[in-house]
């Protein structure tokens, strides 16, 4: 640890890191409140759905950056062997993808439920059991031959 930074510099880097994380957290909260329309003067931001998605994407990116900083600097992964970093970070990256995928999955469940309840509520006229072609053309039905039992 001493070979790359002096003691004084290392101490300063810790508090710089602390400041960085604190500022990013503050920015995240401001963005989140903004997308819900709580910032004075920026209340229109909650009116558009795409702003919500954009701000969500920004929040996720900022949190990923915080995670990178904590892992690489505070937990010293940046100074470890690269393959150790890979064995830890690859599963965690896959986990993160799983989270994103299942959030999307949840939305799809919601949409399907809505679709089913909409379909259940369709009011359709009950038509006589006549082939559609016949019904639409309103022809007289030909005499039917008796069906062999």
């Amino acid at each position, binding site marked *: 640890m001493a070979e790359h930074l002096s003691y004084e510099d290392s*101490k300063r880097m810790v508090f710089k890191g602390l400041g960085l994380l604190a500022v990013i957290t503050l920015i*995240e909260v401001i963005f989140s409140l903004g997308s819900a329309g709580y910032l004075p003067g920026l209340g229109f931001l909650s009116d558009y759905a795409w702003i919500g998605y954009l701000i969500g994407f920004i*929040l996720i990116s900022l949190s990923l950056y915080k995670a990178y900083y904590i*892992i690489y600097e505070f*937990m010293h992964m940046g100074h470890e062997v690269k393959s150790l970093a890979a064995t830890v970070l690859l*599963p965690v990256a896959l986990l993160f993808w799983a989270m994103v995928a299942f959030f*999307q*999955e949840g939305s799809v*469940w919601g949409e399907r439920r809505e679709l089913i309840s909409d379909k259940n509520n369709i009011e359709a006229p009950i038509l006589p059991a006549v082939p559609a072609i016949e019904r639409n053309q309103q022809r007289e039905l030909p005499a039917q031959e008796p069906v062999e039992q």
Partner: protein
Amino acid sequence: MATATETTVVTDHHEEEASWDGAAKPFRVGYGKLMMWYFLVSDAFTFAGFLIAYGALRFSMPSWPVPDVVFSTLPFGLHEFLPGDKAPLIFVTFMSFVLIVSSATMVRAVQEGARENKSGVVKWILLTVIGGATFLGCQAWEWSNLIGHEHMGLRTNPFGTHVEDGYYLEDSHGHAYEAGTEPERFEAGETFLIHQEGGDWVQRSFVTETNPEPQRQSFGPKAFGALFFFITGFHGFHVFSGLVILSIIAMNSASGQYVERRNGYEMVEKVGLYWHFVDLVWVFVFLVFYLI
């Protein structure tokens, strides 16, 4: 020549022994530290499982309480000094700051350990413990406010959400409006809290734009309480066990146990990894529960 060959063979053999007798470290890191990393990966899987459950359930619901409304109070009634009597997300942001500061003090403790400064290690670990304890205290207040004051339970969620614009027929105490008072309006997507008065729920009647029949405020999705308390409780349990372990390591350091060890203050580093993991999980719990 024969001696030279023998020496070469002996050297090779010696290296082989070194590889297989424990003198070589995989990834050039000690066993304890490597296993701590892999324990943290397994714990990450557990937390990810819970957050996935939360996210999948939440986004499958037609409406969900808006976190900015649910988490808008401060202790000692301080939120009443703010416009609208609301402090959306302020308290939980403060909690995040506290945990980040405790992570920074932990890094300092590890740095002092590398310099074998025993008193420095103990001092910075104790500061970390104070930070963690403050976080837990704040979380305890948040829980007691939700449970005792707002009456959120594991299967009761008094935070509902309107799906259409409309206006109320009763005031916030459930009494009909006096003649001439403008009824309170609400918009689609607005979250409300069903209060209790005298032990009974006050579900205000309202009328929406499309439905002139009076309806009563209904409770929100039941899963909210169980998910919130379980996930934040599981995280809080990790913070608490981290505090216990940190205290033990502080006592061990103070007693001079790490001065003689071959790996010195590596134990402080390992516990530091655990503490940073706790902070990291909070970053994602904070993101998923409060920000998104």
